[in-house]
């Protein structure tokens, strides 16, 4: 620093004395404040682990789901023979009748569109 008026040196000494003369309770509060601020940096570091872990777990879950979904049709385990009850059998029979009559329905549709024919 450049040359200063002498009285500012006295002012600096007085300010130093006042800072050194702080009472124990105040110093204790300063200490707690400092520790809290420093603890914050550790907590903020730890705070990164939780979201990062969650994201990692989600990615892993999606990867497993995607892999499982792709491999599922090729596995025999997915094809399980289940007994067909009577209602299902009737429905299947109806479907077969409908497929057999498709030509009739197509002809009927053509008649509707061409009333002259």
């Amino acid at each position, binding site marked *: 620093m450049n*040359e200063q008026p002498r*009285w500012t040196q*006295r002012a600096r000494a007085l300010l130093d004395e006042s800072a050194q003369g*702080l009472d124990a309770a105040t110093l204790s509060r*300063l200490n707690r404040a400092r520790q809290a601020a420093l603890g914050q940096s550790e907590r903020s570091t730890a705070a990164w682990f939780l979201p990062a872990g969650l994201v990692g777990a989600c990615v892993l879950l999606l990867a497993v789901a995607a892999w499982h979904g792709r491999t599922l049709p090729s596995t025999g385990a997915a094809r399980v023979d289940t007994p067909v009850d009577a209602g299902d059998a009737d429905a299947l029979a109806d479907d077969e009748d409908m497929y057999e009559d498709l030509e009739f329905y197509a002809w009927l549709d053509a008649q509707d569109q061409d009333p002259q024919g």
Partner: protein
Amino acid sequence: MDKAQVRTLDEFLKSIERRALRMSELATANRDEALDLVQDAMFGFVRHYASKPPADWAPLFYRVLDSRLNDWHRRRHVRGRWLAAWMHPADDDEPDAIAQAPDVNDPGPLARLAGGEAAQALDAALAKLPLRQRQAFLLRVWEGFDVAATASAMRCSEGSVKTHLSRALAALRRELEDHA
């Protein structure tokens, strides 16, 4: 942040916390408020600047503290602050008051006061200064920052620092002489 860095940071904060508290106390005239401001400044400093080189820490810490003090004053003295700025517009062209001071060997007003009385008179005179003048004085004279570091801490131009300091020195001298 590893343990060595935390220890270095702890030592730095320990080295400045008392002066930071006194600075805040002079600004707020309230120890509890001053402690809250210092703690807030410590949190802000650790959050934003702990990764900077330790050589830069002191001006950066005081930048955070200065910001907190400004916020505190803005909340409480908006009208007075605008009025003061209007009545005393900044002039960046003034020379550095310390560098240009002609009376470097003048013992000054504090020499005529006894220890305890001088300390009280200085506290009272500092408390009467506008915030920016007081910050310029404390950072330049007490912390020993140069003009550039003070300007960085106060987020203003070097010319403004010189102006604030010049006015602070004149006001303090006048106030202390009246007291003596």
